[in-house]
């Protein structure tokens, strides 16, 4: 299959165009857009099969010149790092289409935008040209803004603009950093591969001006920081995380899933894709504070905040903050286990949190509120739903046999070698997680059934259809993690090897 | 300061220029402001003619001055036309009512 990545990225765009051309028939539109996400899914599976796990570098590369005068190329390609994310994206966007079948308002617009969003995400993970990367990165913003803003909850406008401004703030800084890198490569180029190759050319001697002089920062550190802020907002790392709860609470279910499942990963993905291989020295210098310590803090802080939430969706949102902390912590470790664990955690968090948001959506569609205290004894009313939820919760809690366990253990194991104290903090997060999740289970599902909801219908087939694949993946990865780890290992080790000499 | 020194003319120009600016700044009245503008133009003209006499030695400066005078006339015409137009408007409408047009 030639140019498979391009097809994966642009078939949804074509789908969006078709959807716009369709007559205003909701049913038709839904199925057409669903169909538009199927080919990418198959291609993703094909990639999964044909990906050479032994090779470290990029594969399925497509390279065309785009703007020769500025040396901007249309370069796509995947390595172990991105392919996991591509798989995740393809799967989630396929499932989320079905999760959005409930949408009634301006159906056409919704699905068109959703498909555009899909394309944008796919592109970000495939792009190997920094300019292209940035374009996709931004292209993703607009649909997201509208999806939250038009189809969201009561405070949707606030949430949407907050998300938009926050992310744009990050990305303009990113743009500056990209340009700075561009002018320091020789010949000037946006090709990430060349930038990586020239990683050691980027200056590291301390800049004379304030405040960099006091911080002992060189060019690399400044660029690193600029990029990092852009990515940290997406992760979202404390203190840039506050857009997340608002966005999640207001966004429609499917969008929340995409938001938590894919968009958050872009932050950590970006750091691994750019900061690590391109700015190794700075990475080595910054990792402890800005990835390690901050990650550990994220874990505990997110967990504590989650514990105090009254809104089920907000709770899940904060749990994402906490779980992304593991990714940061793992990245900071520079051990094979830590790094692989981090990326695996990205993948797992995608699936698990996806499930969680879908599940919250299910109950919300029935009860029309998300107040944790407002439920109780649901287990007796919707046993199947309860079972699935329990699965998701325990996976998120990191119970062995489920995917969350593998990644968390790997992350913590990997981190211990470098920062035992941070590991201890991170591991204590596990206890807190168990605390708030179990407490939630108890308040929502256990106890005497709530009379208000005795008649509540059990989870239906369509909803199960969106959940089961994720659940299956969660179990498979938990039992046989090599499915994913084999993809990652080679590439991540390579990335790691770039940084380690500078530690 | 003597008639055959460049700087004396320039200083006169400078003073007139400043007075013109002063007028523009302080006057509440459009016509007065336009007068101020005329002063500024004249000060510039003094410079041009002076320079063409003392510095360039050719008539470029004088030509410039003449063009400035022409355009001053044109500008005055347009300006006063606008003033009159507004005057007509305000004749018809009383100023109190204008309050309703606030942004």
């Amino acid at each position, binding site marked *: 299959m030639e140019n498979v990545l391009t097809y994966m990225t642009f078939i949804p765009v074509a789908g969006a165009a078709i959807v716009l051309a369709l007559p205003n028939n909701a049913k038709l539109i839904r199925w057409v857009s669903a169909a538009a996400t199927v080919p990418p899914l198959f291609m993703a599976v094909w990639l999964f099969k044909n990906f050479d796990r032994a090779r470290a570098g990029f594969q399925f590369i497509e390279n065309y010149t785009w703007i020769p005068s500025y040396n901007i190329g249309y370069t796509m390609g995947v390595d172990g790092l991105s392919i996991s994310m591509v798989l995740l994206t393809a799967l989630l966007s396929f499932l989320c289409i079905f999760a959005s079948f409930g949408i009634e308002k301006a159906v056409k617009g919704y699905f068109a935008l959703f498909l555009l969003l899909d394309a944008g995400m796919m592109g970000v993970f495939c792009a190997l040209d920094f300019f292209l990367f940035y374009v996709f990165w931004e292209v993703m913003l607009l649909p997201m803004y509208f999806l939250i803003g038009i189809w969201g909850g009561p405070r949707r406008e606030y949430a949407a603009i907050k998300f938009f401004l926050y992310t744009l703030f990050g990305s303009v800084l990113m743009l500056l950093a990209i340009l700075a890198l561009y002018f320091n490569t020789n010949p000037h180029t946006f090709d990430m591969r060349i930038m990586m190759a020239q990683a050691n050319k980027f200056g590291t001697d301390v800049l004379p001006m304030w405040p960099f002089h006091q911080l002992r920062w060189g060019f690399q550190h400044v660029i690193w920081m600029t990029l990092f802020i852009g990515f940290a907002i997406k992760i979202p790392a404390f203190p840039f995380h506050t857009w997340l709860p608002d966005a999640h609470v207001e966004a429609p279910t499917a969008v929340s899933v995409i938001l938590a499942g894919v968009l958050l990963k872009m932050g950590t993905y970006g750091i691994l894709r750019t900061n690590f291989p391109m700015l190794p020295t700075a990475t080595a210098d910054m990792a402890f504070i800005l990835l390690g310590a901050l990650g550990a803090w994220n874990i505990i802080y997110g967990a504590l905040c989650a514990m105090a939430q009254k809104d089920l969706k907000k709770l899940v949102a904060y749990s994402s903050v906490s779980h992304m902390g593991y990714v940061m912590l793992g990245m900071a470790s520079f051990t094979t286990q830590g790094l692989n664990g981090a990326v695996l955690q990205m993948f797992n968090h995608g699936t698990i949190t996806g499930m969680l948001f879908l599940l919250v959506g299910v109950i919300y569609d029935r009860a029309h509120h998300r107040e944790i205290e407002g439920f109780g004894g649901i287990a007796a009313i919707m046993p199947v739903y309860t079972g699935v939820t329990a699965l998701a919760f325990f996976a998120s809690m990191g119970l062995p046999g489920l995917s969350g366990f593998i990644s968390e253990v790997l992350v913590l194991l990997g981190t211990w070698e470098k920062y035992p104290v941070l590991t201890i903090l991170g591991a204590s997060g596990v206890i807190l997680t168990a605390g708030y999740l179990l407490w939630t289970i108890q308040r929502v599902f256990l106890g005497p059934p709530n009379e208000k909801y005795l008649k509540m219908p059990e989870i239906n087939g369509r909803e199960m259809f969106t959940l089961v694949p994720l659940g299956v993946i969660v179990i498979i990865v938990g039992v046989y993690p090599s499915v994913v780890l084999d993809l990652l290992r080679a590439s991540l080790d390579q990335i790691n090897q770039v940084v380690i000499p500078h530690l | 300061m*003597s*008639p*055959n020194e*460049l*700087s*004396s*003319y*320039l*200083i*006169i120009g*400078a*003073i*007139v220029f*400043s*007075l*013109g*600016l*002063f*007028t523009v*700044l*302080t*006057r*509440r*009245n459009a*016509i*007065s402001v*336009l*007068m101020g503008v*005329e*002063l500024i133009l*004249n000060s510039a*003209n*003094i410079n041009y*003619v*002076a320079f*063409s*006499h*003392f*510095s*360039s*030695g050719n008539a470029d400066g*004088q*030509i410039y*001055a*003449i*063009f400035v*005078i*022409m*355009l001053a*006339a*044109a500008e*005055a*015409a*347009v300006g*006063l*036309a*606008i*003033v*009159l137009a507004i*005057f007509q408007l305000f004749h018809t409408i009383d100023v109190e009512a204008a309050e309703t047009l606030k942004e």
Partner: protein
Amino acid sequence: MSVSTAVFYLIALITVVSAGMVAFSRNIIYSAFSLLGTFMGVAGIYIFLGADFVAAVQVLIYVGGILVLILFAVMLTHRITDVEVTNRAAGRIPALIIVGALVYLLIETIRVTPWVKAKELVYAATTAKIGDLFLYTYLLPFELASLVLLAAMIGAVVLSRKEIKE
């Protein structure tokens, strides 16, 4: 001190003082008329600089054209009876400070600047030369100026036309 110098001083004085009147006078009519003084003074200065043609133009256009226009406008828009509100000014003190600073800077700079020196100072009649220049080197600006005047005319007409198009 020669007569010419004295005359020069006189003219300079007229120019500056009447300009001052324009700036400070409480009555718009007065300032309008003292504008006449400035124009005349400037014309005189032109004579001193051996620019007879420019001086003539100054007198013709400024005094004969613009000033009349201004006075006309003043008359049209003012009931001459009420004198003290006709030409109010505000914030003179700050304006004085700023302008004072400016004029100081200007004069200082003028003093220290090494302006270009022409080889010799000519006092010939310039009219013919200027005529040639207009029709040869400065032909394009000349044409352009005519276009400007045309535009100004049309504009003035359009603006002061009262009735709305039917």
